[in-house]
């Protein structure tokens, strides 16, 4: 029921959004460019200051630029420091169950403690 295939209803929604966005854009251009006196003579007096026609796009672009730096900074802040216990283990590994070892069966998946991993990697096999 949730396929992304094109349906007639979706085509209608898409066309309505297309017309709506074109209407919004033409309205924005009219508000930004047509002088206030002409708008007043038409009777349209209660529109926002034209200052915002320039300010809002600038705010948006600066926010996008800051967003890049902010995301980078948030990532760096949430990285665990080198002396944190989270680089070694976490709550799930502490509470895991130990299944009994069965002959000729694939061993159960578990989190191997770091001491064991180190011994396997770095100490030569005797």
């Amino acid at each position, binding site marked *: 029921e949730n396929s992304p295939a094109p349906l007639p209803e979706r085509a209608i929604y898409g066309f309505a959004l297309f017309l709506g966005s074109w209407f919004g854009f033409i309205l924005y251009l009219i508000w930004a460019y047509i002088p206030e006196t002409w708008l007043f003579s038409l009777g349209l007096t209660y529109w926002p200051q034209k200052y915002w026609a320039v300010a809002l796009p600038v705010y948006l672009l600066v926010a996008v630029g800051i967003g890049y730096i902010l995301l980078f900074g948030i990532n760096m802040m949430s990285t665990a420091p*080198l*002396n*944190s*216990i989270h680089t*070694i283990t976490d709550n799930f590994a502490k509470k895991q169950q130990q299944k009994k070892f069965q002959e000729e069966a694939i061993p159960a998946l578990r989190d191997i403690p*770091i*001491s064991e991993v*180190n011994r396997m990697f*770095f100490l030569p096999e005797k």
Partner: protein
Amino acid sequence: MAEERRFRSASGVPIALRRRQHSASCRELAVRGPRLQLRSLSAATSAVWLAAYGLFAVSENSMVLSAAIFITLIGLIIYLHFVKIDQESLLVIGSLGIQVTSSYASGKESTTFIEMGQVKDVVINEAIHMQKVIYYLCILLRDPEDPQRVSEVVPLFQSSKPRLDCLIEVYKSCQEILEQRKTAPQSS
């Protein structure tokens, strides 16, 4: 007996590892970084003084020059005393504990001792550090209530950051001593 081998740090700087065996259960491993180079010192000093001279030429205020001299002197003293670590050493005594010493360029030494009862293991861990993944040696401390749990991680060789080949040497030396405590008679 002492031996010294050359390695590289994580950023490519040459470092030297010195291993000394004092007795069957006591080993000292020291990692020494490069000394403060004269060319980097003169480059930094000239940059600060040129900038100060440029400011003086613009503002005609001679305090800028004396301020620059002060800043250079005090900055150099602070750097040598608090930042530049010349040698980091690890002294492992089998039945007693592990002592970690950092020697600064000004001669200051800062020491930490961890007794053997608290040490669970010495392992090589990998973690993300400043857009890189590095290997670093760390001491795992035991939890007093639950001997199987790790309560704290103490990273070692933080300023010289040796690469994996040097860390494997240090790891093998430490493990030889730590294994002796399993075969030795247990004491409460």
